[in-house]
């Protein structure tokens, strides 16, 4: 028995090493001079660790601006998203109105349609609104995300209706019931929704690519992708290791967040799907 469990441990560890290797390569690469990367030896640790890549990134490119854009957009997106999605989840789970279930069905069905299918009409719409190249375009249209609403609804259905009835009898308005009774109960799922929305916005690529045309409005993924293919944008040329530094800066917050709120993370990114179909 002991023997068997050791074998399994070794197998799991090998897989873990394979899975984390690219991340390791990125982080180490960001501290390595470019010459060492392009040398015919495998480098596990940089021989002459350097911060040059980070300095280049921060002073020779517009990366700081992209970082601020990303943070601003992701925070607004998350806060607004939580407000809308929790309210929508409450309505779908605990209020009765005509067409509720069919509306919910349409919303869920829309999740099955990939985002690139609707990118053209969305672009035309946002262009007519004059929102292209503004923060609005990245925040407003997508923050009421069906998946987050679905998560909220799913969890709110566990709140016993009696509690709501008694609060209504005590004279709470519908909004007070939602705000004072339901929200505190569903706090765990709000964490999961927040993380889902934040990661979604932080990592988004296609819509920012289409909607943000000025370099000052770029988000981090857009900017990094641009730096990574410098032949098309020769204005801002840095070593590829500086791009790796940017990648490191963009994944480290997410890694820290993941390490500290793992449960909410996994629930936010998978929980709804698990409960929904199963």
């Amino acid at each position, binding site marked *: *028995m002991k023997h068997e*469990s050791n074998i*399994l*441990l070794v*197998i*799991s*560890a090998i*897989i*873990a090493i394979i*899975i*984390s*290797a*690219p*991340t390791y*390569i*990125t982080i180490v*690469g960001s501290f390595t001079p470019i010459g060492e*990367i*392009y*040398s*015919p*030896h*495998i480098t596990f640790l940089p021989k002459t660790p350097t911060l040059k890549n980070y300095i280049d990134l921060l002073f020779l490119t517009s990366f700081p601006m992209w970082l601020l854009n990303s943070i601003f957009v992701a925070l607004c997106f998350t806060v607004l998203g939580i407000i809308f999605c929790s309210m929508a989840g409450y309505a779908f789970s605990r209020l009765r109105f005509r067409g509720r279930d069919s509306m919910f069905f349409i919303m869920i069905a829309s999740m*099955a*349609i*990939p985002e*690139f*299918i*609707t*990118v*053209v009409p969305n672009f035309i719409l946002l262009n007519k609104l004059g929102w292209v190249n503004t923060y609005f375009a990245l925040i407003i249209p997508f923050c009421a995300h069906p998946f987050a609403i679905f998560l909220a609804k799913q969890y709110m259905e566990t709140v016993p209706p009696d509690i709501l009835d008694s609060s209504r009898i005590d004279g709470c308005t519908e909004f007070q019931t939602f705000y004072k009774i339901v929200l505190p109960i569903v706090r765990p799922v709000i964490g999961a929704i927040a993380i889902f929305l934040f990661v979604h916005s*932080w*990592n*988004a*690529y*296609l819509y920012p690519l*289409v909607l943000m045309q000025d370099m000052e409005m770029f988000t*981090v*993924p857009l900017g*990094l*992708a641009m730096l*990574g*293919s410098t032949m098309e944008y020769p204005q801002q040329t840095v070593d*590829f290791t500086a*791009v*790796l530094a940017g*990648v490191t800066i*963009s*994944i480290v917050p997410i*890694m820290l967040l*993941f*390490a500290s709120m*793992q449960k909410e*993370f996994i629930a936010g*990114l*998978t929980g709804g*799907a*698990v409960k929904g*179909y*199963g």
Partner: protein
Amino acid sequence: MISIAILLALLLNYPLTKLKSFFRSVYFLPVTFSLVSIALTFSIIYHLDYGIINMILNSFGFTKIGWLVDPDIALYSIILMRIWRATGYYTIILIAGLQGIPQELYDVAKVDGANSLQRTLHVTFPLWSPMILVTVVMSTIWSFQLFAEPWVLLRGGPSDATLTTAIYIYQQAFGSMRFGDASAAAFINAIIIIALTVTQIKYMARKVR
């Protein structure tokens, strides 16, 4: 991809495996990274001369593989990248499914004399199949979404080897400003996705029963 995830989920749910929650988080971590970061990371890993994979192959005396330059191979490089990122995700979902299977059923099977392989085949899989269906449908839908990795790495090249429908639509609409063509392509694609998903669900649902 799903078959790897099934094996990993079984591994991580096996009572004798140690440090389960640690490995679970390690496997899940790539899911949280943006596709662009992953594409950029892999552009160095797949590098023809200095990428780690080719250097390892070289040191064992194999010839270098043109991961991103060879039109016959580029698509597989993209697929490999996708497997690397998404397997952990499906593993977690499948583990959740496994944990939903009541322990009593295993105890009963044990009393009836089923060995551990039989228990896996006849208790786990039938009860697990709805969850496997979920992951198969999800990964089908998501595979159609393939955009950021081939776009950032290769712009759909070399010689259109990694041109996905998403890239095609993007190029039509925002490269050549042909919104009509792009919408037509998107519409056809949507129909295909819906048809595939429905068939998949129907087919698998029959098997599940």
